[in-house]
Each structure stands twice: as C-alpha cells, then as structure tokens.
C-alpha cells in the first residue's frame, strides 16, 4: 500500500486530464461518475493507508527528483503522517461527497464536464499541498489550489463581475504567496533545505537565530493570511462566492482556506521557537474572527453570510493556534470542514430549489418546501453554534478553554466572536426557514427538494457534523483526546494550561447558556416577530457600515488599487514613453539636428571654401608653430 501513495494525488490528476481533454465528447453521466470515482478511490486508498500511519507514525514515498541544485534538492516525495493523513481524509472524503453533490447541482450546466475537471484538479493540488514532504511541493499545491479557485470562482466567465472576483482572489492570494515565498527563501538560506526532514529532522532548529525564525514565521503568516482569508487579505473570500456553491463548500470552506492552518501546523516547530509570531497569530485570528462576524450580522446573501462565517471561524482557528491549542485548532478545522461544507451544500440546495435565488430576504418559511434541507441545515447551524453534542461544540469549546487558560479576557473575546456567529447564523436560519414566505409565487411553484445525489451527501455530512466531535472527546466527557494523541508525533506534546475540571464545567455551562440565549434572541426576532432586514439603502449608522463591510473594499481601492493604476499610467505614459524613450529619441534627434545645422557650413560658393582653406591652413600653421 505504501507504494501506491502517489496514486492518491495522481488519480484526480488523471481525472482532470481525461475530463478536460474529453470535456466536449464525454457524456455528462460518465464525466460525473469518473470525477467522483477518482476522488472516492483516493478516499479509500487514504483509509487503507491508515493502518500504516497508525503503526509507523508516518509513511513516505518519493517518486523522483524535482529540483536539484548543488546545495539542496527537492523530491516529488509524499509524506503521510497523522496530520496529512487527517487532511487527506477530509479532502478526499468531503471532496468525494461534494463531487457527488455536484453531479446533481451542476447537472444542467452546459460546462458540467469542465466543472468536474476543475474540481478534480483542485483535489489534486490540495492533496499535493498536504502530502508533499517538502515546502516546495506544499507551495506548489498552495499555488495550484489558488489557480483552481480562480478557475472555479470564474466558472461562469461570461459575467464580468465573477471574473473580477476570480482575479481578485488570485491576486490577493498571490500577495500572500509572495510573503510565503520570501519565507521559503529565508528558510532555504537558513537551513539549506526545503524538505521537512532536512529542516526538522536534525538539530538545525536549535542553532538558528531566533530573529530569523520569527521572520520566517511572520512571512508564513502573511502567506497563511492570504490563503486563509485573514486580515488584511480576507476580502477576496466573500467575493469568491461568485463560484458555484459546491465550489464554495469544497474550496472556500472545507479545504483550501484551511491550508493556512495546515501550513502553521506543519511548521509548528518553527512557530514554537517564535513566541512573537504566535502572539501575532492570536491577535490576528481574534481580530479577524470578530471583525468578520460583525460584518456577517448584516449580510443578506445566504452565501456571503456563510463566507463571513468562514472567515470568522478561520480566525478562531488561528486564534487557537496562537494560543498553543494546536489540536483544538486542527480539530476545529476538521469539524468546520464538516459543518461548513454541510451548510454550504444545504444553502446550495436552497438556492438550487429556488432556481438561483440567494437573497435571504426573498426566502422564508421554506421548511415545508425543502424538508430535508431544513433538517440538515439545522444540524449544521447547531453544529456551528456549538450546541452539544454537535461536533462544533467540542472543537470550539476546546479553543475557548485554551483561551481561558491564557487569560479570561481572551476567553471573553473569543466567546463574543462565537456568539456573534451564533446570532447571524440563526438569523439566517430563521429568515430562510421560518417567518413568512417572501418568495414570489412563480419561484415557489417551481421550488423543489433537491435530488438524491444532492441530499445523500447532505445526509452524510450531517451525520459527520453531528458525530465529528467523537474524534477528540475530552477527558471530562470520558473521552481519550484521541486526535490529540494521534497528532502528537507531528505537533509534539503541548503543555496545556491546566484548568480544573470544575472550572471546565463552569465555562462550558456559561458558553452553552449564552449560546442558547442568543439563539433564542434570534428566534424571537426572526421567527416570532418575523423581522425582515430592509433594503441596504435604509440602513443607518453601524448597520450601514457593517452592511458595507466596513468599506474595506472601497478603502483598498482608494489606497492601493487606484494609486497603483495611476502610478502605472504615469510610469507608462510619462516616464517610459515621454522621458526614457524621449531621451533615446532625443539623442537621435539631436544628432540629426546637429547634422542639419552644420551642413549649412557647406555654403556653396567656392570663395567661401577658399577662405576656410586659408584659415584652416593658418590655424594649423599657428598651432604647429606656437604650441
């Protein structure tokens, strides 16, 4: 089995090639089956790898050299350790489900086959990202998923707005990538290697100066902020909702955006040597979490709400990472993958059912029309809210506990962020499924529950959202912290702040209590009082600011984009064309100009020439005589 590791990423690649090249000839049914099969096979293979991982700690396979220079080299090598194995499971597992779901969701799209091709390609890159045994492969996957994200956001490319969103995503990612890349260079310079074994294997780390390590990790954070949509590079993610909903689920919720978390976890030994970077992570994550959550309060697009929630949850994960609660962060990553995928997909189901409607103000009271969706959506929302025994409860709880271990203030802020999340999630939930139906009749008549290919994955994901918490049941519930032990070979044993069991119970109670209060509050507002958010123009004060997302996009445009454009125009038109080229042309023109002037000396009358000759001779004579 260990020799077939390479098959796991290569299968989707093959899938991509076949689907891509045959996009116009393959029937849709075959294409979707093929697309799902490659991923599902990958999932099976990953599962089969499990025993190896459990018994050996990690399995590795190299299939050849990629880059070799005199001082360092990098292989096409795959490393499956607990961390990447879990990631692979999520990617192939959730990925397979979403593929299946897509078969239904995209069934009527004329470019259905391309969609599957791109999804397969994405999975390939994502697997490359997590499976590579070196940073260069990680970076390759990193860039590759960015590319797929670009392709899929702009999947419907005849809409210019979508194209802009796609471009924005790619470019913002690239900004982060540059930071990452610089970090890699520094890493390479410091350690002379890019493969994990080379860097972490020896005792190189202990010799490296702390300043350098801090610099490396900070640069990595820049990269992670780009990919995982953290402040200040988060603005692309909400826009990325332009893509088809399965894409949002797979890429912009479950997998790609968590690559930043993966990167930090992968480099955790570096981060541990750089407390400042960890601190940065903490506050960055926290800030993002709160910031995004507040925006989420006032969004009316079903996918946008989910997008901000994703940003917020990712912030929470970084928060956890910064606090040293690595397992909690990763745990949350996994559970988040489940319930956020679920949420997106069920949102997709809603959209699908309503023929493309995304505005929650135009929904309402859909629980009868879309019963299955309603249930799974409810599960997802409860999971994200952190109601026991849903998976979100366990993971979020561990994060908050870790925060408390650091300082009560952090705990409070973290709690605040998650309460905001609870509020806007339930706001959305109630607006969609409760209250009065605000859908126009025409749409409502055609509204329908989604086909089985879509609901089945929803069901499975719902089950996972429900039971995902079992992965790491904490001791106080009689669990064994399985995930934590499983990950220990990778992230090491972390000294967690010691909190007494009673304290733990208390905190848990507070959290759950407050969550319930907030849910009730939302229920009162939107299910009972049947409030409906008004038109955007009517918003005032804070509401207006939140609705406009703090005007961040506008600020970016004014501060970065516009000046850059103007600079570009200035440089291109004035500096380049007028000045530099003018200089070159000027030399030419000057020379010909001189030629034009001095040719007049050739005046035409022989008398004048005689004069010149006479004076020329005189001059030479004088020079010869007296000098």
């Amino acid at each position: 089995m260990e020799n077939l590791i390479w098959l796991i990423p290569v299968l989707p690649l093959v899938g991509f090639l076949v689907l891509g090249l045959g996009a116009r000839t393959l029937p849709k049914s075959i294409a979707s089956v093929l697309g799902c099969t490659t991923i599902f096979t990958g999932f099976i293979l990953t599962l089969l790898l499990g025993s190896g991982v459990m018994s050996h700690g990690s399995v590795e396979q190299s299939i050849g050299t990629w880059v070799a220079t005199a001082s360092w080299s990098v292989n096409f090598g795959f490393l499956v350790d607990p961390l990447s194995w879990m990631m692979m499971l999520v990617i192939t597992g959730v990925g397979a489900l979403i593929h299946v779901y897509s078969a239904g969701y995209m069934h009527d799209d004329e470019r259905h086959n391309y969609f599957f091709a791109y999804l397969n390609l994405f999975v390939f890159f994502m697997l490359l990202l997590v499976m590579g045994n070196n940073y260069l492969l990680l970076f390759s996957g990193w860039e590759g998923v960015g590319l797929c994200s670009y392709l899929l956001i702009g999947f419907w490319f005849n809409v210019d707005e979508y194209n802009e969103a796609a471009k924005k995503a790619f470019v913002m990612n690239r900004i982060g990538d540059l930071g990452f890349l610089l970090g890699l260079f520094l890493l390479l310079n410091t350690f002379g290697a890019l493969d994990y074994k080379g860097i972490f294997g020896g005792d190189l780390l202990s010799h490296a100066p702390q300043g350098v390590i801090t610099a490396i990790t900070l640069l990595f954070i820049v990269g992670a902020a780009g990919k995982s949509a953290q402040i200040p590079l988060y603005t692309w993610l909400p826009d990325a909702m332009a893509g088809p909903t399965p894409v949002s689920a797979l890429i912009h919720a479950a997998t790609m955006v968590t690559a930043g978390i993966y990167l930090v976890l992968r480099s955790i030994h570096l981060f541990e040597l750089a407390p400042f970077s960890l601190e940065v992570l903490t506050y960055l994550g926290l800030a993002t979490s709160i910031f995004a959550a507040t925006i989420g309060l006032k969004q009316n697009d079903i996918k946008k709400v989910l997008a901000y929630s994703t940003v917020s949850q990712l912030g929470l994960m970084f928060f956890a990472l910064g606090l040293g609660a690595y397992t909690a962060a990763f745990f949350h990553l996994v559970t988040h993958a489940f319930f956020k995928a679920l949420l997106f997909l069920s949102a997709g189901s809603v959209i699908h059912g309503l023929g493309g409607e995304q505005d929650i103000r135009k929904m309402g009271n859909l629980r009868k029309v879309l019963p299955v969706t309603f249930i799974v959506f409810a599960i997802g929302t409860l999971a994200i809210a952190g109601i026991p025994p849903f998976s979100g409860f366990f993971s979020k709880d561990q994060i908050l506990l870790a925060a408390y271990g650091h300082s009560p203030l952090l705990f409070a802020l973290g709690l605040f962020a998650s309460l905001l999340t609870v509020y806007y999630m339930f706001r959305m939930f109630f607006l969609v499924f409760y209250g009065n139906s605000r859908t126009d009749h025409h749409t409502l008549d055609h509204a329908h529950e989604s086909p089985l290919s879509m609901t089945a994955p929803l069901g499975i994901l719902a089950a996972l959202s429900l039971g995902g918490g079992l992965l790491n049941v904490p001791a106080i519930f009689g669990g064994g912290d399985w995930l934590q032990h499983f990950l220990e070979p990778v992230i090491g044993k972390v000294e967690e702040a010691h909190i007494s069991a009673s304290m733990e119970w208390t905190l848990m109670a507070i959290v759950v209590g407050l969550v319930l209060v907030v849910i009730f509050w939302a229920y009162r507002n939107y299910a009972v009082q049947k409030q409906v958010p008004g038109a955007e123009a009517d918003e005032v004060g804070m509401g207006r600011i939140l609705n406009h997302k703090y005007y961040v996009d506008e600020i970016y445009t004014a501060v970065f984009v516009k000046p850059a454009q103007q600079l570009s125009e200035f440089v291109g038109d004035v500096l380049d064309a007028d000045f530099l080229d003018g200089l070159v042309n000027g030399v030419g023109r000057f020379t010909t100009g001189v030629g034009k002037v001095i040719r007049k000396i050739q005046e035409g009358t022989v008398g004048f020439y005689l004069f010149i000759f006479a004076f020329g001779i005189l001059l030479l004579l004088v020079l010869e005589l007296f000098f």
Partner: protein
Amino acid sequence: MIPIIILSVAGVLSMFIGAFKWKKAALPVVLLTGLAALVANFLPENRSEVPQYSGMIQFDGFAVNFSGVLILVTLLILVLSRRYYKDAAEHLGDIYALFLFSLVGGIIMVASNNLVMFFVGIEILSIPLYILAASERNNLLSNEAGLKYFLLGSFITVFLLLGTVLVYGITGSFEFDKIYAFLEQSGGSIPVLLRMGILLIIITFIFKISAAPFHFWSPDVYQGSPAVIMAFMATVAKTAAFGGFLRFINYAIAPVSEMYAPIIAVLAGLTMTVGNLMALNQTNLKRLLAFSSIANAGYVLLALVQLGDNSNSSVLYYLLVYSIANVLTIGVYLTAKETTGLDNIEGLRGLYKSNPPLAFCLALAMLSLAGIPPLAGFVGKYAIFADAMQHGQLVLVIIAALNSAIGIFYYFRVMMMAFQTQEEFPKAIPHVVGYSAVLIVCILALLGLGIMPNLVLGVFK
C-alpha cells in the same frame, strides 16, 4: 614601372581611337590594356626593392599592392561606365584616356620616392580629374564641380609646392631617403621651416583625401560630377591619395611622428564626426556618398596616427573594401537613375520588388560600408580600430565606434528605400554587357574578403 608605361600608351591609344570615331573599340582596348597592366603590375619584373631611376620611384611591395588596387578598381569602374556613357558621349575615347592618365598619376603617387616625382604624380592624377569633373559641358552642375575642384585643387597645390620647397631648402634634397635621414639625424629639434614644410605637405594630403577641414570640395564635386567619375574620385583618387600619404609618412617623415601624430589624430576625429553628421540629412545619393567618403577618410586617418606593422595592410584592405562597396553602390545607382531619372535616394524606392538582386547588391554595399559583420567592411574597420587601439588611441577608437553608429543611420536609410515593398519600382532594365559581372565581382569580393580577409591583410607579410 611597366604598368605606368602600358597605361600611358593605352591612354594615347584610346585618344586615337576616339579621334578616329571608332567608339566601339575604345572600351575593349582600354580594358584589355588595363588588364595587361594589372597583370604586369604583379610580375616580378615590375618589382624592385630599391629605388629606380635615380631614386625617383620604387616599385616595392607597397607600391605594387596599392597600384594593384588602383588598377583593379579603375577597371571595374570602366566596365560600369558603359552603362553610363552607352552611346552619348562624343569624347568617349578622350574620357577613357583621362581615366587612364589619372590612374597613371595615382600609381606614380603610391610608388614615388621623391618629392618632385610625387608632385608630378599628384598633378597627373588631379588634372584629368578636374577635366572629368567638368566633362559634362552643358550641365551647370558639372561645370560648377569642375570649377570648384580646379580652383581649390590648384590653391592647395601651391601650398604643396611651398611645403616642398621649404623641405628642400632645409634638408637640401627632394628624396625621401635623404629627408628621412635628415630627420633621423636632427633628432628632436627640427628646424621650424622644415616643420612648416612638412605640415604644408600633410595639409595637401588632408585635402586630397578630403578630410576635415579641407573636405569642402568633395561633396560639391562628387555631386556635380558624372556618377562614374564620382566613383572614380571616391575610390581610385582617394586610394591613391592615401597611398601617397602613407608612403610619405612611412618613407620620409616617420622619425618625427610626435610632430604630426597629434594633428592627424585630431583631424581624424574631426573628419569622421563632420562627415557622418553632415551625411545624416542628405538625400542626394552622390552627395551622401561624398560625406560618407569623408567619414571613411576619418577612419583611415586613424590608422595613420601611429604606424604599426599592420597599418599598411589595414589601410590597403580598408580602401579596397571601401572602394568596392562604393563601386557597387554606384552600379546600382546607375540603374536606378536610368530607370527613374531621380538623383536622390528616392530613386531607389521599391527596388526590391522589381529587382531583388539589385536590391541585395545595394544592401550588401551599405552593410559593408556600415561595417556590419561578416562583410568585408567590418573587418576593415576592425583592422583599423585594433591597430589604433594597439597604439593607445582608446578615445579615438570610441569616437570612431560611435561614429560608425551614426553612419549606420544614413547607410540604412539608403538601403531602406530599396526595401519599401509597398512601392513599385519601374520595370525594364536593359541588359548591358559586363554590368552584372561587375556587380557579381563586387559582391563576391565583399563576402569573400569578409570571410577571408587574409587574402589582402596578409600581403605585406
């Protein structure tokens, strides 16, 4: 000496043929005798490493090689002249005779070993040229050219004579050897009058090679003269003048190089710059070539600043290549002029479309003049630059290099005209015997000498 005799006789013969109105025979006779002279020139009997005729003349390697170039180029031009004169000229025999006489003058210049001989040579070279320049009697431009050339030429001749007499007066001899010996003896301190004499002689050469500031005659004269005669002036006369100059420096005044070197260096830089700058905006092809010839004179002067082992061969090579490129250009120009009637470079417009080979000829000539490898013009420039560099003339070489860049501008402008493919060039170019042969010879020479420059560069070894 033999070629001088053959050519003089041939000249007289040609006159008689002309006088008997037997025009058709003139050119073949002239060409055959010219060929004979060329062969004779390289016969061992013609060579002599010691001065002959009481030290008047010396057909050593230098003289033979330069004479060879002179005769060869003259022959090429004579063949071309058939395209120009076809049937028109009433004095065809006389004109050919004048060509030959002038050539004789040139050979005397490059072979002379005595200032008197030298003076006679210069005059034999120049006087036929004055006549040839003015030979289109009814063409005012030709009149003007003749007048200017004559007036300025004789004005300068007077200075040559003054210089000669001053040199004679101080050294007591006209012979190069004795002058050389005198200068060597006197060491650093040369009498002022002698210096002035030498300077005046140098000035004459500066005039004859049309270098600044005594270049003013050449654009006007070249433009006004009939095209083949212009070609002759730009090539044979110039080569002869340079040959004479080189000989004078080599054999007579080499010991006082520190005296003349700075002057030549400054004038070289000045000449190439002036020539190139003034050529930039020219549209008349002959005038443009005149300025180009001024600029080229500047480059060659570079080699004269400090003579080294390779200087003679570099100069010879350069002049040969330059002459051939000029002949080629004029050859193409003759056709263009005949077809379009235009004197300026516009007359070449669209040549490529109707007559690709001619356009390529022009292109090769221009590329060679511009000094683009692998054509011979490049090797010529290289040889001279390398030579100058070896003698530490770095600044001058850089000036020359930048000047070559300016040169490219106008050479390419001419070439560009031929390759304006959207234009149609008028058709119908009647075939003239020998014309294509000359062009082919020129092309082969430009390519061949570019790839195997040692054919010429090695002759002084």
